[in-house]
């Protein structure tokens, strides 16, 4: 479903095109899903859960917030690079899939925001206002959205140093942010 939506766009995808991709019979589809919208919503949940599991797995061995952030972002971006259609289905096409899908998107964004908000400001720095983490999540989401939507060569991982710069800036200050910009990325 996500592959089909990412490739064809939510509006254009039909149950037929999903069946063609999966080789399932129509009856099998309707045993599991009410309709296209229901199938997309379930696929969206599963897709987001998969990305979040990858991110969590990548952050598990890391000791500091900044290392977890770097590893987590890298894992998420790497997933979208490997599966750009799924990425488009989750990030771009969710806007075409109705209010329930948008509510799910908001919830996922909320979890991303709290991921950034876990940061502890470096000693001597005042904690930034709560809006900082929202701004970072929204900014990153937006750049990823426009890259995925443009359907060019994606390579989101190449944006990791930039994203780290923006994410680190309010919590750890300009010095650390600059260091992230020059960092070679995740080994």
């Amino acid at each position, binding site marked *: 479903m996500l592959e089909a939506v990412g490739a064809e*766009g939510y*509006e254009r995808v039909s149950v037929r095109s999903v069946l063609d991709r999966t080789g399932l019979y129509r009856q099998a589809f309707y045993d599991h899903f009410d309709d296209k919208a229901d199938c997309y919503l379930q696929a969206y949940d599963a897709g987001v859960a998969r990305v979040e599991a990858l991110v969590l797995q990548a952050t598990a061995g890391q000791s500091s917030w900044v290392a977890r952030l770097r590893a987590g972002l890298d894992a998420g971006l790497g997933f979208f690079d490997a599966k750009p259609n799924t990425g488009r289905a989750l990030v*771009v096409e969710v*806007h*075409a899939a109705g209010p329930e899908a*948008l509510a799910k998107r*908001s919830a996922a964004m909320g979890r991303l925001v709290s991921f950034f908000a876990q940061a502890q400001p470096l000693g001597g*720095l*005042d904690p*930034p*206002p709560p*809006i*900082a983490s*929202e*701004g*970072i999540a*929204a*900014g*990153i*989401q*937006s*750049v990823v*959205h*426009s890259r995925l*939507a*443009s359907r060019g060569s994606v390579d989101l991982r190449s*944006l990791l*140093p*930039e994203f780290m*710069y*923006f994410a680190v*800036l*309010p*919590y750890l*200050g*300009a010095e650390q*942010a*600059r260091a992230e*910009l020059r960092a070679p990325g995740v080994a």
Partner: protein
Amino acid sequence: MDSSASNPGVGPAPSPRLPRAYAVRSERERLLDAMIRVVAVKGYEATGVTEVLEAAAVDRDAFDRMFPSKEACFLEAYDAIIDVLVAHVSAAFESTVGQPWPDRVYAALRALVELLSREAEIAHMAMVEITAVGEDARIRYRAALGRFTYFLEEGRSFSPRGEELPADTAGFAIGGATSMIFDEVRAGRGEELRRLLPDLTYAVLMPYIGAEAAEREMRRVARGG
């Protein structure tokens, strides 16, 4: 072209002194205006061309001569909205020439949220509805966001570390602000967008000047404004 050609559906014939092109343009404008108003209330999917024709008092033939589809008409109407938004924001930005860049950003953002909150239905159409219309609409949407980068360019020279800023800084800042506006508008709080102004100011300035300076500016400009 025969200027006496009949012009069905426009109601009273236009003044004979006006060239036919004038009537055509005004039919087009009426259609664009009607498209905006109907979609703003009903949503794009639920809007039929017939309702737009009724609201515009234009007949189907005239519509078909001007637009190949409902989508084409909608997209042109969308561009017209963005033109108005950009002009409005631009006027605020230009009226503060010579002031520090954060003040100019604040003035531009204030103009933006004031217009959007005054026209909450149109804001919903231009920010939420547009992302659901399809690929062409999304291209317009991204192009529209791109038109706001102009207001941020000065941030590079204002920032103490302008040369080191990542290439996508404007995209990040605009994206962050847009996304916050999007959430409010989608949640039906479009009329209360003004409350978001300090947060928006912070989100746009922070990538350029850092958190502490952005917070200072946010408080200062919010007090001054």
